[in-house]
């Protein structure tokens, strides 16, 4: 890492209010943005790792977070308006706080949209999803869904082992037999440790009936 890059990173990092979007002229934004990306590229430990917190959003994916924020804001405001407060409640009722948070969420969504539109003209930034690999994520999520669905039927031992195996597979483990043995022993160790040592009963599933 060059001394140059490090110094500038500090200059850029020492002020929490400093923003890569939000307020400020495009020039100031650029002055902040460049050192950050430069340091990241030069860092050896995390080779070529993108730093999402300092990435300026670009492309269609840039609208995902503003959209989600706006939806959340609308839900909050809708909830605040439709809330059924008991008649004897004192003035700032149960709807006041959700309403305030909802309006602030909508304002945040608008601000992020404005930043997006402004970046559209300046042509900088990167697609936030450039490095995103969907397959392992879907595998892990599938493993979690299956685990949740099966836990109380097949018991912790098998459901836990399956979850361990699937996640290990998603992260690139390919020694299937060894993975399975590790998965089963982890799951068994947890079940035994928690049941005997801590008195927490994990579901035994159908194995409980067999044994």
């Amino acid at each position, binding site marked *: 890492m060059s001394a140059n890059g490090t110094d500038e990173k500090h200059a850029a*990092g020492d002020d929490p209010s400093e923003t890569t979007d939000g307020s400020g002229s495009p020039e100031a934004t650029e002055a902040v943005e460049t050192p950050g990306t430069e340091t990241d590229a030069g860092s050896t430990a995390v080779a070529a790792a993108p730093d999402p917190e300092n990435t300026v959003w670009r492309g269609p994916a840039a609208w995902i977070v503003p959209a989600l924020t706006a939806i959340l804001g609308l839900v909050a405001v809708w909830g605040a308006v439709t809330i059924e*407060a008991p008649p004897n409640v004192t003035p700032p009722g149960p709807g006041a706080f959700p309403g305030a948070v909802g309006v602030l969420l909508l304002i945040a969504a608008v601000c992020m949209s404005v930043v997006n539109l402004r970046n559209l003209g300046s042509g900088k930034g990167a697609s936030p999803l450039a490095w995103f690999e969907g397959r392992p994520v879907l595998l892990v*999520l599938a493993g*979690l869904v299956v685990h949740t669905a099966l*836990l109380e039927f097949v018991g912790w031992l098998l459901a836990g082992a399956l*979850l361990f195996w699937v996640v290990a597979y998603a992260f690139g483990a390919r020694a299937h037999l060894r993975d399975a043995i590790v998965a089963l022993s982890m799951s068994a160790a947890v079940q035994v440790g928690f049941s005997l040592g801590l008195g927490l009963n994990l579901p035994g599933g159908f194995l409980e009936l067999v044994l």
Partner: protein
Amino acid sequence: MDTLINLMDGLAAALTPQNLVWAFLGVLLGTAVGVLPGMGSAMAVALLLPVTFRLDPTSAFILFAGVYYGGMFGGATTSILLNTPGQASSIATTYEGHKMALKGRAAQALGTAVIGSFVASIIGTLVVALFAPVMVEFALNFGPGEYFALTVFSFVAVAAVVSGSVLRGVTSLLIGLAIGMVGIDAQSGTARFDFGAASLMDGIDIVIVTVGLLALGEVLYIAARGKSAPNFAAIRTGRPWLGRKDLRRSWKPWLRGTALGSAFGPIPGSGAEIPTFLSLGMERKLAERRERRTGEKSEFGEGAIEGVAGPESANNSSAAGTMVPLLGLGLPTSATAAIMLAAFQQYGLQPGPVLFERNADLVWTLLASLLIGSVMLLVINLPFAPLWAKLLKLPKPYLYAGITLFSVLAVYAINTSVTHLVMLLAIAVLGLVMRTFGVPVAPALIGVVLGPIAETEFRRALAASSGDPSILVSSGISVGLYALVLVAAVLPLIAYLRRRRATARATADVKEPAERP
């Protein structure tokens, strides 16, 4: 002088070989549970509560003290090594601690954390013992208006930990506040945002949010990163002991962190995370000032040891500080304290002013056992810090599979409910989206924890004054806190404007950075 004698009596009562074994076991179990990502000291104490049914109160409290401190240190270990803090109070440690680990200084980070924790808990316990009556009086002065000012202050302090865009940080905070609104409104009993589901009436448990956003969100994020993910195999654990330079840079942050933690710990509702973030921010500013004055480079942003030493001490001394309202008022101010309150009640003891009179010996034994627990922490974890650091040598697929397994376990263990696992999935996906788009997750966690407190105190204050908002600024304490809020908000703005001018000058001049000393 009385208190010292009492404390000595407590020590004498607690220092039996048998109790030392309990302390040892407690620290070991606490650390073991604490190093599991997503599980902190609260979880460790909760899981061990049934085990202590068969012990006498003294042994049980010594076990708890060991578990408490062990769990806190375990949380620091995962923050440093895996970037997955087990509890809100170790979030601040992740920023510099994990960067130190990535630079091959994991053992030094762990070393400064364990010594800092030791120093802080010894001093913190002594402070509690000596100033308990005074601090109780101070804490009693807080009305709803002051509590609300305190939460506003913490929201602003969040800005200090956001490294990138403030807008994204604020969005994250708001998302956290929104999550915290789910469930029955404590003031009016109205169900809010339950979408017709009975399981949402109780709200979304903080453990689910923590595990989902931090642990499982991280697993999904690393999975999405694929080849561009950080490579732990490259991390060397390095020399196990702190060098002279590390010590020289650590001892002042230890003391400053301890002071902050002791000051905030007894204030109900402030929790351990506020002093940790304040300490992190303060050490960062001090390092920058030192850089300007003496030219010694600030390492903040790439693994500064001060950024581990300060927050970790603050964390532990505030843990000791939470004993003040717990013992003095019967008011638990953290999740762990809430579980310890349950433990007290299990022995038929009701913490509060009466406890100091009726079971004074037990109170002093508990304080003494905190001392014993911190000594044990040092004895067990300083030599083994490099061993915990070896955790990173595990094959990556197994490491993340293990984290996933324990995340699911931690959430399932709350109430053995599959519904909680469904919530966990949803929160984990939210965590993945936030990480992917660079929306920091820490502010969201703070929002979830403090949002309900802020709302309750705000409405309680207005109810007390029958709608007159002037109650919010009616006392010196709240006015002082709002003044601090203004300072915290305005100072960075001034610094930003100054830098902007400097940059503008520099670009107008030659293309050369103007801030270089």
